[in-house]
């Protein structure tokens, strides 16, 4: 494989690297299928983080606000599909978790958010527009859940452009 991995998190203005990852044991989700609407890509270190207000549970609760902004949400970690399935069922998640499991962390590497030493993804957020261009990216310190304020501000900035496309 000859892929030039970025040295740091991909910045705004970059075309989002394509991917196709399993969401369930028999279903794959590709970036191309998510085109046409803004997409929030939330990389996170691992399922089962030991806090109740964890990032994925928080985003699950906020999902209606993301939908109001016309956006869809996908979580990505290096956990496998069965782990994701158990985690999603436990936390009652209503959005897909993708398994960046094999080759391990490949998609995280392409987005410049893989932590080689620990073998996990950073806590990294990308807002990708309807055409597949990254419009905002952010890496949070590993131990700090970034919340959703940055995502919503980025989606707000997309909104006028989106209306322009539709009219």
């Amino acid at each position, binding site marked *: 494989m000859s892929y030039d991995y970025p040295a740091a998190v991909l910045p705004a203005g970059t075309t989002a690297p394509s991917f196709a990852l399993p969401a369930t044991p028999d279903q794959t989700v590709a970036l191309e299928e998510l085109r046409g609407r803004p997409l929030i890509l939330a990389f996170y270190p691992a399922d089962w983080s030991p*806090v*109740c*207000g964890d990032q994925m*549970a*928080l985003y699950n609760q906020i999902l209606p*606000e993301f939908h109001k902004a016309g956006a869809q949400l996908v979580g990505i970690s290096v956990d496998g599909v069965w782990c994701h399935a158990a985690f999603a069922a436990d*936390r009652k998640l209503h959005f897909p978790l993708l398994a960046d499991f094999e080759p391990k962390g490949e998609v995280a590497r392409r987005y410049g958010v893989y932590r080689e030493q620990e073998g996990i993804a950073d806590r990294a957020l990308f807002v990708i527009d309807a055409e597949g261009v990254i419009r905002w990216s952010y890496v949070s310190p590993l131990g700090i859940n970034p*919340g959703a304020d940055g995502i919503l501000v980025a989606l707000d900035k997309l909104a006028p452009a989106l209306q322009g496309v539709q009219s």
Partner: protein
Amino acid sequence: MSRLFIPVNAQDHAEGPDTAPVTLVEYGDYECPYCGEAYPVLKAVQRALGDRLRFVFRNFPISELHPDAVAAAEFAEAAAQAGKFWQAHDMLYERQNALKESDLFAYGEEIGLSPQVLHRAFGGAFDSKIEVDFSGGVRSGVNGTPTLFINGVRYDGPRDADSLIDALNQAARTAPVHA
């Protein structure tokens, strides 16, 4: 750095003087065990800071995880209408393991909230206030419960009493003099 999106205002539940040099805002969920742990700590912090602290509570029920959190928030908002918000707030955190509607009706009787008022509350009479709190919290970078803001800036530090008292004292020292 995440900041409070909606400034503290007259709709808020606040303890302590408006002119206090430091304001601590908690976004909380009555059923969240971490908020339950924070409850006695925040009481200790309030005692330590005295009149130099204004403490504000805003609702952030994570109902997907905590099925009784919204009813508890509705109970507290109903109590607020009767001028008993803090009594209800404290009661809910002190009895966090029993927040079913039947429990809440019993608590209502204890603090003088009629079943009619509570029926209205559980029917959604105060839900717009709870939703305003929630979405303002999302916009402010609330990242779980409890999330604390000190003079409008999200506090990501340790939540033991000593650390909080230090952080609040420091904020009080650097706060601009109240106009």
